[in-house]
Every structure is written in structure tokens, then in C-alpha cells.
């Protein structure tokens, strides 16, 4: 009788261990299906980039009683289009170049955890705190617009334009073998 009991206990233990092992070995549950990445377009360009910015910014916004607070890492880049440079040759040995308007590009970083939702809540007890995708996108769009203003206000564009004058002078000078003068009609940029 005792032996039978031991056998039953042993069998139960083995069965439980088997289920645990099966559970551990089985693949994780994911309801998300990834589709292949697709190249939408590839475009050639000649742009001189003089300032790169990486900054964490708070994303705080409200739609009615619903609120969200998140942290976002933003990549900013200030460049100048060299394809449409105004170049004027003065004599045989001098080239006068006018610095074009800056191109300010702002994107969310691709580094891990570049957008983390910290809190979302509602003032209305019986309402859901969920923002729709469109509402959340509108808040993010405002954050980007504010970041663009900040880039100008903090003088990053001014710095980028000043460095573009120096870099362009040396690059074009090396390529053409002539004396290059780069003039900046708007040192503070074109906000």
C-alpha cells in the first residue's frame, strides 16, 4: 500500500515537473506580428551637416480630461543644401558663395527606449484615460514644433551657420583651388 502511494506521488511529481519544463521550453506569447521592413525611397543629395543634437524632452499634453506624460529622445540635425548654392566667380581666382537657408530636421531617436510613456490619467473618474493615436500624434507634433523653436532660441542654428561658413570655405577652397568667400545673409537663420 505504501509502495503504491509512493509511486503515485512520484508520478505526480514527474508529471508536474514535465508540465513545468514544457511551459519553460515553450515560446513566449506575443500577439504582435512584425512585417518586413520596406525601402520606401532612396534619394541622392548634397547637404552639409554642421550640428547634430540629441536631447531628451518631456512630452506632456492633454485632450479634455485625459492627460499623458512621457519621455522622448529627439535627434535634431542642421544642414545646408549644396546642390542649390549661389556661387559667383569674381575674376579667375575668387569665388563668392552665399550660404543658403538651413534645413532643420527633427526626428525621434532610434536608440532603445526613445519614447517611454510614464503616466496617463484622466480627471474624470468614469472616463478612460486612453488617448487615441491621432490625439497622441497631435501632442507629439506640438513637442516637435516647440523643439524647433528651442533650436533657434538656444542659438544652435546660429552656431550651425557660423560653422557652415568655415567648413564650406575650406571644402570648396580645397576642391576648386581658389579663394572662396562665403557670406551669410542671415546669421540667426530663417525660423
Amino acid at each position, binding site marked *: 500500500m505504501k509502495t503504491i502511494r509512493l509511486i503515485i506521488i512520484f508520478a505526480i511529481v514527474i508529471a508536474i515537473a514535465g508540465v513545468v519544463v514544457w511551459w519553460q521550453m515553450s515560446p513566449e506569447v506575443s500577439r504582435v506580428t512584425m512585417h518586413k521592413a520596406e525601402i520606401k*525611397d532612396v534619394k541622392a543629395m548634397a547637404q552639409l551637416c554642421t550640428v547634430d543634437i*540629441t536631447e531628451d524632452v518631456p512630452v506632456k499634453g492633454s485632450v479634455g480630461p485625459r492627460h499623458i506624460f512621457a519621455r522622448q529622445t529627439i535627434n535634431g540635425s542642421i544642414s545646408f543644401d549644396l*546642390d542649390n548654392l549661389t556661387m559667383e566667380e569674381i575674376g579667375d581666382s575668387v569665388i563668392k558663395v552665399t550660404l543658403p537657408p538651413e534645413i532643420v530636421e527633427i526626428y525621434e531617436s532610434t536608440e532603445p527606449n526613445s519614447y517611454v510613456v*510614464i503616466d496617463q490619467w484622466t480627471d474624470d473618474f468614469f472616463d478612460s484615460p486612453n*488617448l487615441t493615436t491621432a490625439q497622441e500624434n497631435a501632442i507629439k507634433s506640438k513637442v516637435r514644433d516647440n523643439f524647433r523653436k528651442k533650436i533657434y532660441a538656444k542659438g544652435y542654428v546660429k552656431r550651425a551657420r557660423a560653422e557652415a561658413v568655415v567648413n564650406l570655405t575650406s571644402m570648396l577652397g580645397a*576642391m576648386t583651388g581658389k579663394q572662396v568667400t562665403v557670406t551669410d545673409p542671415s546669421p540667426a537663420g530663417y525660423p
Partner: protein
Amino acid sequence: MWHLLVIFVFITKFNITTIVMKLKSIGAAMLAIAFFSGCNTGGSMQNTFYSEVKSVNKLVLAQMTISKMATIDDLSLSEAKGLKQSVAAIGDAMKIGNRKAAYSYDTYMRAFIDLTNLQPTDVHVDESTKTITLTLPAIQTEYLGRDAEIREDHYRVTGLRSEIDAEERANIKEQMNTALKTEVEQNPVFRDKLSLQARGKANTYFSSLAARDGYNVIVKFKES
């Protein structure tokens, strides 16, 4: 208890989903209180904000837009693999309503040469043949960033199923980002296409620059 819940639903005139979510929120809040009252808080490291502004001298020659899509759907029993997924699939089959959505966004890569690596010896002029031999720094690629906004290509959440909230969308985007980077690393087509375009652009750009004075340009690239 059930009577109270029915009256509660009737009085508030809100749909079941909202009530279930509210109860979930209350439950989560209670759990959080129980958890944090039982241990010392370590402080959230996520609140550390980082900022960097750096001067660069990059000649950007090409840019690529890559689109990535992900879908959310219940697990079906026929497609479930292993015990965990089978249990989850049975759970999903028992739920009332559907929960399907598709999201996508664009990521941008660029190819550039770092002009700080350009030396005076990299430009060789042969006046006799009117030829400039230009040895440019190696073409590099980098991620410029991704769209902050996410496109909602499809959304159908019905019955008693929970809505897809901002946190879940952020998590999906994170997974999509990781998957995209893995694809780009494993498939050389992405970087090759971008580099090819950049090489072509470098050739045409510098040729047109030197052509003003009647020079031919031979563009070479250093090895990375």
C-alpha cells in the same frame, strides 16, 4: 456584489469596456500601493534627461526612408506553438470581441562622408591632363531618426476587449525598432543601396564642381 455592479453600470451609463478598464486601473493602483508600501523606492532612472549638441562636418550624400509595419491580433489555437501560446490562444478565444490593429512608421537612414577626415593630400591635381583625383573618406551610414508619430493603418477593438493605449503603442514601436535594426544589420541590401546612391552623388557633385574650370574628376573612396 453582482447586483451592485449591474446597478453601477446602469447608473453611470458607461460601456462595459470603460468599467472593466476602470476596475483594472483601481486594481493596478491597489497593487502598486501594496508593492511600494512593502519596499523602499529606488527612484525612477527614467527621469534622467540627456542633452548633447555636437559640431560635425558631414557631407550627406543620400537618404533612405524605410517603412516598418506591425499588426496586433489574438493568437489562434491552430497557429499557437507550445504550452504558453496554446493557453493564451484558449484565453483569447474565450474573450468577447475582437482586438485587431495595424501600425506603421518610417525610419530614416543617411549616408555621409566625414569631411574632418579629408586631408590636403587627398586632392591631387594633374594640370597636364586637367584631371583632379579626389580620395574621399569612406562612406558611413547612420540612423537619422524615425517619425515621432505612428500611423494607425487599422484599428478594430470591439466587445469587452481593452483599448490599445499609448503605453502599448510605445512598446510596439520599440519592438518594431529593434526588429528593423536587426533586419538592416542582417540584410546588406539596405546599406548597399544607400552607399551606392551616395557614391553616385559624390561623383556627380564633385565632377560638376570641377567642371566649371574644365577639369575632369576621378573620385575614389578610402576603405572604412
